[in-house]
Structures are given as C-alpha cells and as structure tokens.
C-alpha cells in the first residue's frame, strides 16, 4: 500500500506544472549563464575573493610580517624536536 502511494506521489510530482516549467526554462538558464560574458562575469565577481586570497598569502609568506606584528612577549617556546 505504501509503495503504491509512493509511486502515485512520484507520478503526480513528475507531472506537476512546476517540473514541466523547469524543463522549459533550463535551456534559457544555461544560455543566460554560458554566454559571451561568462569569463568577464566570473572574473569581476571573483575579484574581491582573489584579492583577499592574494593579500592573505602575501602576508603569510612575507618574511617581515612576524616582526611587524607579533609581540615578542607572547612567543611560545620551541617544541621538542622529537615531537615534530
């Protein structure tokens, strides 16, 4: 009985108007995404994230960063070599 109910539900859902609308709109969505502006859109949209990643990496690998920022009083003792 529950299997029959599930099958009926799936049949109703697949035949529903919204599911039909998606098959109609999907090509339009794909066309609106993958057009001649795709690369420009992606680059401009990701520009802030790329800048933040670049800034973070620059800061991390900058040799002068620890001496500019970290307070010497907070330094940790070196970990024993055997544990590394």
């Amino acid at each position, binding site marked *: 009985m529950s299997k029959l109910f599930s099958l009926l539900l799936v049949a109703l859902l697949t035949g529903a108007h919204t599911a039909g*609308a998606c098959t109609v*709109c999907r090509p*339009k*969505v794909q066309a*609106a*995404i993958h057009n001649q502006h795709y690369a420009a*859109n*992606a680059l*401009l*949209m*990701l*520009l*802030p*994230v*790329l*800048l*933040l*990643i670049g*800034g*973070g*990496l620059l800061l*991390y690998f900058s040799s002068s960063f*620890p001496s500019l*920022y*970290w*307070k010497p009083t*907070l*330094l*940790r*003792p*070196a*970990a024993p070599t055997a544990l*590394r």
Partner: protein
Amino acid sequence: MGAGMGGFVDGILLHQILQWHNMLSGKMPPNNLVDAKVNMYWDGIFHAAVWIMTALGLRLLWGAGAQTDVPWSGRTFFGGLLIGWGLFNVVEGTIDHEILSLHHVYEYTGNHLPADLAFLGFGVLLLGLFVAAGG
C-alpha cells in the same frame, strides 16, 4: 579564515535566507525564474570561491601553528577572524557594490546606498574592533 567565515555569513544569511545580495542582480535582477536561477548559479560560484578561501585559511593556520614565533592564543585567533571578516565586507562592498555595480545588498529599491553603506559600515566596525582591542 575570517574572510571565509564572513563570506559564508554573507552567502547563507543575505543570499539564501533573506534572498538579497545575489551576485549578478545589478545586471539581472531576479524578477523571474530564469533570472533567479542564473543568479543562483553565480551565488554558487561565489560560495565555491569562499570555500576555497576558507580551506586555504585553514592550511595557513595549520602552518602558523608549527611556527614558534606565532602566539597561539584565542585572542590572536579571534582578532584574525575579526580583521578577515571586516576586510571581506570592505573589499567586496567597495569593488562589487560601489565600483563595478555588479550587485547591491538590497536590489529591490530605488536607493541602494543605505544597505550598501550598512554592509560597508559593518566591515569598518569589525576592523575598528580589531584595532581597539590592540590589534
């Protein structure tokens, strides 16, 4: 990592729950199903980039943990989160909203400035908190 966490708050709260701040809404306001789905795609690309940024942040944190000249404290970690989140809002808000006009925080109004300034102001507030706490 702070920038990544700020990006996820933005993506989850503003983009998905409130349905504001969609990535391409300045060019293509999500007023119909096709435009909403296109914006959803670009929101997904943004989330993927933020995930990569957070993963990189985790990797750098892991590396910093092995350095003896890095103070390992909750205060340093929390400060890093504050400055990262603040920088995310300021950089994203300045470039995408004000310079490129790709989108605005709240698109469904004639005057985008108040919400955009609130977004920027929140970023500046976080940076101010970081400075006020002594860096």
